[in-house]
């Protein structure tokens, strides 16, 4: 198996795990972490497809996508962490629980 295939598959697996964690886990912090795992999975997949057999130079377009994605992920993570912190301050000392009430 080509290295890029391996990285690609791992990327997809990480993405699936991360999404599962973000939806199924109960606490905000853990969901944020799971989301970052999923994001990493997507980036791995993108890097993998940049290296396709037969081309000597990697494709720059997926690299651009990854860079954009990293910027977005970092800023979004920072923002959500601040919000979780603020929520903890406002709602008392108990840890931020994700109490879903559909």
């Amino acid at each position, binding site marked *: 198996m080509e290295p890029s295939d391996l990285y690609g598959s791992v990327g997809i697996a990480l993405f699936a795990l991360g*999404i599962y964690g973000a939806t199924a886990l109960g606490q*905000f912090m853990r969901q944020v972490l799971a989301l970052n795992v999923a994001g990493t999975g*997507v980036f791995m*997949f993108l890097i993998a497809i940049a290296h396709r057999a037969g081309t000597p130079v990697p494709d720059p*377009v997926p690299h651009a*996508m990854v860079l954009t994605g990293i910027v977005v992920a970092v800023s979004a993570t920072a*923002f*959500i962490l601040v919000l979780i912190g603020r929520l903890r301050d406002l709602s008392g000392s108990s840890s931020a629980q994700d109490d879903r009430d559909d």
Partner: protein
Amino acid sequence: MIERAIGAPEMALVVAVPLLAACAILLVRRRTAVLGMVASLAIAALAGCLIWRIAQEGPQRMNLGGWSAPLGITLYADGLSGWMLGTTALIALFVSVYGSGYFHRNQPATQFGGTANFFWPLWMFLWAALNALILSADVFNIYVALELLGLSSVALVTLSQAAPAVSAAVRYLLVSLIGSLSYLMGTAFLYAGAGTLGFKELASILHPESFSFAALALMSTGLCMKSALFPLHFWLPPAHENAPAPVSAALSALVVKASFFVMLRLWFSVFDRVVTEEAAMVPGILGAAAVIAGSVQALSAQRLKQLVAYSTVAQVGYLFMVFPLGVLNPSSWTAVGGALYLVSAHACAKAAAFMVAGNVLRAYGHDRIEDLRGVVQQMPVSMFAFAVAGVSLIGLPPSGGFIAKWLLLTAALEGPEWGFAAVIVAGGLLATAYIFRVFSRSFRNVTDLGDFKKIPARMEWSALTLSLCSMLLGLTATHVLEFMQAGTPLIRVAMMEAGP
């Protein structure tokens, strides 16, 4: 229908001006409302110019900076995008007017006092994101726009600074990020399989293969989460209920429609050969469930903003019924025209309804439906606006909501899809029930009228103007539908290849 190589400058400006305005307001930090209003008028004027240009010359295409795909960003505006842009500009303009009254600097330093300075930059970012999303011509730019949209929306929700608002914001942001990530993965799949990201190019390449199915599923799931389609709608009511009223108006009217708009484009032109009737039934059935579930929950809502938020869940459900109705129908325009009409009519009516809810909250200090008294005597303009908006939400003639309902029902009965037709009609009846729940209170005999605080006139009049717009849409249907078809945006690619 010539697509000019250089393109209209309005296309770039309509995205650049709000971005610049946002930065400027953040830096200047004084007279934010004035700057915000000036910027809003400018953006609305630009949108108007672009629409005029599309009507005269046909679709417009522009490569930013002169760099072409795949590395450059292409903007494309046909009748469909022109219409969405126009709707956005109209609603956004009046949300700005309303916001300038709501976030008044003379207000005591309550939770809303210092936040005017943050409302305007964030609002400009949101508007920029919307415009960028509407004009994008490739799937990755849409991702960027979706992220910007999500972040600014969440930030705006937190302006209330109360615990319920922040909690709702966290949930909203999580959902938004999961959705975007899903969308991004889908984009990655598309690039892996097709080697390109532009709409036009993808439309001609994509065929039913495993990677395209996977991409379609991932992107659609992400977009459905962002549009709060049942059963992924749980984040919307708390967020829209606890946000400040102008923010709720913008979120319900515009933001949830943006992801729907993207999904519309994807299903009917990019993935045109890939979509099947069975696949289209999934969003359709979920949409039908949304109509019923959202309306039922609106019936038992305790507070006015909560009721209006659940109404959004229900109305979004109507929109997603366009997928089965449009896919079955070769020309698709009856169903798609109906859905787009609903987007605009609902945007006007829902924004007006949230503005009225905000007025009630500001005037009486609460918006509990059971305790509403004397609204008609003290705020007749607001009550009238709510009544007119209600008529459009129920779908009674001669409003825009009726035109939408007529078109969707026609598409359903052409199928014939009896289930969807029944849901469309039942949704109207349920909407009658929850609208009149509020409206009938204005006829009750009232003895004591409760505490009342006067609110700025512009807050009432912006609500009224928007609700009258939803009525006006009902009377200009033929012209609007004709404009939307400029550039024949959604003629099925497969049909075009089949030839006459």
